[in-house]
């Protein structure tokens, strides 16, 4: 197989956890020490109560994400990928099953583990910047909540503005920025406290294709420089493959993990690599799987 050739030493050591057998099935060729996974979903179910009765949104989700790994969650709209991410982020509780962050359980009854929570940086489809704060204050909001002094917050915000090409807009209000810049500010906010895990829900879904390509490149370099673990929800196959170490394919009603496809091209990846035949091969595989499940 063409992609086999591209398996490289960067391949993350996968956890030899029997519960993840299904997930790891396609990834079992890498050996090495079984470090504790950064993020784990164990037999997670989610059922929503609606007026029509109950809807099973997610069923038997098992997923383990290694430290520094980049996971793309791919699927059609309505397949539960956003729900899955919200469960990972602790925004909603699973009906059954467990979410583990490192060696800690995310939920203790109805309360969330604050130490686990503090490892997350969240980016949503909408930038969700607060219109009453300047870009600087938006970016530094997580630091404010952690009681960091104003001067240090400002310094950090400036640093992030530099990193994400927002210099000169520190004092602007979000409404004065373009969509792409707002999303960049949202990413800066998520990065402000150096989170170990970035959870991103279609962050570039509302951007035009060119801006999106650029943001994908930036995200890649961020993930390389910070070494953060990333879980990235998208419905774009190309985007999923371009960014990920593993693409997790979800199928709908109820949302299940259909397959996990490793992507092993060397990093940093260039946009041109999207036209490589090996890249296209992976895209084709995924598209085939998506088509198979029908509409």
């Amino acid at each position, binding site marked *: 197989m063409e992609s086999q050739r591209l398996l490289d030493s960067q391949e993350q050591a996968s956890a030899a956890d029997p519960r993840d057998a299904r997930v790891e099935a396609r990834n079992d060729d890498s050996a090495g020490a079984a470090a504790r996974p950064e993020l784990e979903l164990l037999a997670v179910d989610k059922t929503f109560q609606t007026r029509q009765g109950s809807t099973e949104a997610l069923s038997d989700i098992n997923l383990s994400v290694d430290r520094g790994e980049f996971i793309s969650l791919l699927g059609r709209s309505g397949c539960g990928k956003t729900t899955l991410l919200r469960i990972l982020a602790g925004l909603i509780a699973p009906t059954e099953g467990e979410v583990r962050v490192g060696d800690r359980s995310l939920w203790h009854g109805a309360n969330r583990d604050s130490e686990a929570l503090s490892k997350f940086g969240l980016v*949503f489809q909408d930038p*969700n910047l607060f219109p009453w704060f300047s870009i600087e204050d938006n970016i530094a909001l997580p630091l404010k909540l952690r009681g960091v002094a104003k001067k240090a917050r400002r310094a950090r915000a400036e640093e992030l503005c530099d990193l994400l090409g927002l210099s000169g807009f520190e004092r602007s209000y979000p*409404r*004065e920025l373009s969509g792409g810049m707002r999303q960049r500010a949202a990413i800066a906010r998520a990065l402000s406290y150096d989170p170990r895990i970035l959870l991103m829900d279609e962050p570039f879904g509302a951007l035009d294709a060119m801006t999106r390509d650029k943001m994908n490149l930036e995200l890649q370099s961020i993930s390389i420089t910070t070494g953060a673990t990333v879980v990235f929800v998208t419905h774009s196959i190309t985007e999923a493959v371009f960014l990920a170490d593993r693409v997790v394919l979800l199928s709908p009603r109820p949302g299940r993990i259909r397959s996990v496809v490793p992507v092993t091209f060397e990093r940093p990846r260039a946009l041109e690599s999207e036209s490589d035949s090996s890249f296209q091969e992976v895209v084709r595989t995924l598209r085939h799987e998506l088509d198979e499940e029908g509409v």
Partner: protein
Amino acid sequence: MDTRDRFMKLLPWISTPVMLALSLGVWTFLVRVVGVSEFILPAPRAVAESLGALLIDPEIWGHVRITLTEVLAGFAIALLLGVVGGAVLGRLPWLEVAVRPALVAAQVIPKVALIPLFVIWFGFGITSKVVVACILAFFPILLNVLLGVRSVDRGYRDVMRGLGASRWATFRDLELPSTLPHVFAGMEVAIVFSVIGAIVGEYLGGNEGLGYLVVVSLNALDSSKLFAVILLLATMGSVLFFAINGVKRFVIPWHESVTGRDIG
């Protein structure tokens, strides 16, 4: 685009004096040329003279002070009750459901019709007018605050929740700033209503305040004085409204209602 924006900004400063001059022109025309009776429509000059006489009369400031006190006291009480009530109802949906019929009933009752009752209960003095001003101002504030508390953006809530923000931090950085535009929207309506409440209250009872002065001028068939007092009342209403508006511009400079058009 830029020159167009500037033009749009300048436009009211040009159009308003023009409209003022036009109305003065029509007014003068009606009096001079059409010959409308002095009693129905006194000449602008007569009104100006009445206004001048009124302004140098030391007694007038007593009346202004009385009306202003009624308006501001009623408004302040309504603001306090409205914000607290709106916040509580916004947080407790069951309570809102429970009191909704009463709220709707209280809203549709023409509250001005109750003024004679208030006069019986609270006398001809300042209190009954404060009560009327307060009741009229209360509902727009309550309903706006209720709406504001309810309509905090869910995406913003996710941000705070995802960051594990405390109850207090969520209030300080999200709920309060998000609700403030609604509070101000309510206040802008409420200040106008409380002026109305105080004046109508004065019409119906008592012997002080600008509303009382309107009634006195009417009884004396002094229409130019009547016009002058109405002008004073209009000025007072505008000053109060723009005071609120000014505070709003200072407190929520980021809001669309302040910045004008959305950019981008």
